[in-house]
């Protein structure tokens, strides 16, 4: 009983003391300091949640609340990262995965862009392609995996093909849609100004469709990762997905978690690049203007 009273007294006296700190001059000084810190604080804000999660995770592992065998602690994942980097295994797998993603994206993306362009510009091509495209778009491309394994086996071409199919549709659709939604008044004006053919394309059609095309690209980049992870996890003998599945065989959960985190980091990096391109290419657009 007496102890409780003591504790209470301790807190109340502490409170009084802290109140005396808030002399008006002191408060305004603090306010100024906080204002200076504001930009830094805002820049750090997005990393608060990931860092907090890491700390909680590490604490849970350290106290034994989460068994290491099920979910290794962050520092063990870091050690696995260091180890695999030194043996050269990790850079090799990351490189292979990146190459597959890039090749598939380049093939599927450029095909989607070309067909979308044709359907957007010519009524004939629209009538020819668009109905089929809208139908095929509804088929989840991952449903093709069994067929693709039959066609290509589990080699490189199977993964590249699957990624290409995955990125084709968002880029097709957004290119087509972007061109079709260009302000008809601007097209009319451009024709009056004597533009046609390549000049009309580069001055009006492409820049007008670009916001939509870039949305398609960002969406396709997400699909590209997803497809690659699934393809590498199901069948393969190299790449990040293979690395994690292989580690599972040997119960190396640290490597499995490392693989998952790698996808997150690489995905974030790609998204940052896409955002940067968006900001640069659409500087004229009110939604992307800096000033």
């Amino acid at each position: 009983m007496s102890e409780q009273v003591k504790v209470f007294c301790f807190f109340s006296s502490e409170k009084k003391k802290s109140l005396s700190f808030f002399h008006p001059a002191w408060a305004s000084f603090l306010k100024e300091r906080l204002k200076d810190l504001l930009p830094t604080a805002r820049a750090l804000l997005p990393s608060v949640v990931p860092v907090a999660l890491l700390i909680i995770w590490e604490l849970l592992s350290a106290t034994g609340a989460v068994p290491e065998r099920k979910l290794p602690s962050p520092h063990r994942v870091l050690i696995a990262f260091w180890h695999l980097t030194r043996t050269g295994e990790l850079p090799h797998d990351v490189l292979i995965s990146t190459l597959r993603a890039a090749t598939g994206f380049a093939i599927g993306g450029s095909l989607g862009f070309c067909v979308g362009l044709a359907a957007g510009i010519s009524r004939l091509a629209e009538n020819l392609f668009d109905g089929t495209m809208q139908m095929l778009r509804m088929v989840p491309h991952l449903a093709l995996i069994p067929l693709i394994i039959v066609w290509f086996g589990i080699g490189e071409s199977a993964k590249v093909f699957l990624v290409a199919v995955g990125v084709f549709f968002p880029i097709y659709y957004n290119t087509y849609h972007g061109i079709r939604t260009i302000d008809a008044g601007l097209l009319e004006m451009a024709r009056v100004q004597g533009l046609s053919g390549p000049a009309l394309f580069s001055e009006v059609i492409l820049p007008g469709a670009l916001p939509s095309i870039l949305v398609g690209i960002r969406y396709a980049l997400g699909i590209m990762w997803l497809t690659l992870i699934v393809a590498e996890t199901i069948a393969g003998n190299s790449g990040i997905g293979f690395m994690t599945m292989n580690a599972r065989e040997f119960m190396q959960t640290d490597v499995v978690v490392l693989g998952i985190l790698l996808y997150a980091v690489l995905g974030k990096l790609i998204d940052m690049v896409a955002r940067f391109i968006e900001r640069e290419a659409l500087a004229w657009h009110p939604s992307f203007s800096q000033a």
Partner: protein
Amino acid sequence: MSFLAPSLPREIAADTPASPAQAGLPIRLRGITRSFGARAVLHDIDLDIAPGQFVAIVGRSGSGKSTLLRLLAGLDQPDGGEVRLGDQSPRDAAPGLRIMFQDGRLLPWRRVLDNVALGLPRAHRPRATAALHAVGLADRARDWPRVLSGGQKQRVALARALAADPQLILLDEPLGALDALTRLEMQSLIESLWQRAAFTAVLVTHDVAEAAILADRILLIENGAIALDLAVDLPRPRRAGAALAEIESQVLDRILGRS
């Protein structure tokens, strides 16, 4: 409009690479008919416009005045009759023809100067700079269109129409969306540039006062036909006064059916 004078340096006209010596384009319409569905918008119109003339077409909304302008521009084809610009069809005369639209229609993804230079051959780019100078916006060349005011956007659209040194400019209610003061400024700007370059101008407007200030000749279109063809023979620049009011009331009386 003395406040406009500083933005219109006279020497620019002399510096413009292509001299404005090209005469305006004469216009000849014979038996023009245009219907949308069962509704005849224009019915058997005959019209001659002399080279270099400034003609205003007025009329109620839906009277067919914009349709007439689109036929002149070759953006629409008549169901019957013939449009000749000089001795050519509108399509063949297109290089010498420019339109200034009500909504400006600047490309939001091109900077102001690039908008003015749109469609100009690379070698003629200095003309775009000169045209931008002539409308008083030389210092905004590197801006995006979205940061301009409505009046400034229309000046850029005017500069774009002028840059190719056209023989015919069609103005489709170009000042309809502007505030009263900016309208007055733009009217005198258009007038002075027209006087300098000697192109034929056809202005579609629903503002009778604007037509009276700018036009050599006012055409009233009613029920798809020319209901009034009025020559305005007043010295320029015109200021509000009895003579102008007389012209205005003549046209308005006719539109409103007052005697």
